């Protein structure tokens, strides 16, 4: 029961009604506007962090709804977590060096 009126096999992603995709797109455009406003009002030093946070919300919307992560099984979600975690770890490890160089 995903509202699409289609039966789906257990290994298929859940299809959303067209309205859901359009709503997600509208939300993405709202966040795009918001990120430009945040950049314009100069709330440094929080501006960069706020914009990265907004970018992450937008990326999550794309992943969850457009890429159907919502209806994927635990296996793919964990693997995605491992990939993002590996990248985060690499960045942190590098900065543990860069930040403390003399």
């Amino acid at each position, binding site marked *: 029961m995903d509202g*699409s009126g289609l039966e789906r*096999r257990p*290994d298929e992603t859940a*299809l959303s009604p067209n309205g859901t995709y359009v709503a997600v797109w509208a939300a993405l455009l709202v966040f*795009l506007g918001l*990120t430009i406003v945040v*950049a314009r009002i100069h709330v440094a030093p929080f501006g960069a962090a706020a914009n990265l946070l907004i*970018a992450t919300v937008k990326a999550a919307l794309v992943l969850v709804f457009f890429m159907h992560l919502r209806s994927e099984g635990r296996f793919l979600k964990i*693997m995605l977590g491992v990939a993002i975690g590996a990248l985060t770890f690499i960045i942190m490890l*590098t900065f543990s060096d860069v930040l403390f160089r003399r």
Partner: protein
Amino acid sequence: MVDEARTATSPEDAGGSPIDALGKRTGMWFFLFTELLFFGGLFLLYSIYRYKFPADFHQAAADENLILGSVNTAILLTSSLAMALAVAALRRGEIRRSVRLQGTTIALGSVFLVIKGIEWGSKIARGIYPNGPTLLSLKNGEIIFFGLYFSMTGLHALHVLVGIAVIAFMIRFTRRGVIGPDRYARLENTGLYWHFVDVVWIYLFPLFYLIT
């Protein structure tokens, strides 16, 4: 012997379908993970140099055209919507609608590349390109900013170009009935790729256009 082994483990015996839809998506996702780390290396470089040259990055970013960048972001987000709707239409058996939406995705992707080209062209005309005369007269941090700008948006644009080419094949497959409501994994995977490229741009946009 081989056949026996195959039928014994066939998904049909387990009550599933003969098409391993999850397996096909998993392959695509794993490819996207390698892409994530591929772009990740450049994001890492960007963050290190922005930390080292905050003032130079700030100054160099003033050269970016916020209006063109914002319009391009909106175009790419819209192309992702068209792609998502194209996959949905194919799954519902709306073949003509799916073809139209795939065509829309290609059109929007092409507009994105044209605008990107205008931005690059404007910089190149003013001598801002790798080893360009104006670029070399700038401060070190600014040179690095533009170097990262060209490599990261260039690599991204290359991905958009590849995406357009793949979607063109999908339109052919859809028209010929090679893919359809029961076999849509290729289009769905193409969609995953297109959305991933969109996600990369979602991060590139604030990093290059919104450092004020």
